[in-house]
């Protein structure tokens, strides 16, 4: 599962620490999400999307759809 967290964070000028605090996880979790090493739960995905005022599908990209294209 790819995501646009790093890109959105830079756009909104938000640090990893600030995002982590806002969504209730550690900074390490944000780093892992950005690197694609960890997939967020539905709840965390929702919180992150809400933080950027976007829908989940605008933040997280389902890879299988890309592979089929």
């Amino acid at each position, binding site marked *: 599962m790819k995501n646009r967290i790093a890109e959105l964070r830079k756009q909104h000028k938000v640090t990893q620490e600030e995002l982590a605090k806002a969504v209730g996880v*550690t900074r*390490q*979790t944000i780093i892992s999400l950005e690197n694609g090493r*960890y997939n967020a*739960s539905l709840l*965390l995905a929702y919180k992150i999307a809400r933080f950027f005022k976007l829908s989940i599908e605008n933040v997280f990209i389902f890879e299988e759809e890309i592979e089929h294209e």
Partner: protein
Amino acid sequence: MNDIIKFKKKLYLRIGISAFLLLTGIAISVLVQCIENGTVQISESEFIQMLSTFSGVAFGLIVISLAKIVQYIYFLRNKEALEKRMLMETDERNRYIGLKAWAITGYIMLYVIFISSFIAGFYSIVAVQMMFYILSLFALIYAVTYCILRRMN
């Protein structure tokens, strides 16, 4: 805010459990002392040979439970440390890693006990029986837990 209250309750529960372990450690230590002094007489020689082991277990229980009680009280008194600890424990990635680590440890332990039981067969039949007993108990607990979790989720 509600999460902090819940976490504080969890810490109080942990303090209670640690206090119970501390008392258990003290009780074992006192019992060992009484046996060594001759206040309590026991006839089983194998038990007497295990006294140093029991002393070690008692010492470990006392030290670890005391350290844990001190740590939990520190978290309860320091808001910043409490929030940091709560975040560490509730972070979903940390919980995922913890669960995965338990699963891997469980599988490795099963294989280690299974292989060890064959090696132990050359030395002691009691050890083999004990290992198969542990393996059976492991499988039983897993099956019961799996069934309960399947009903709950």
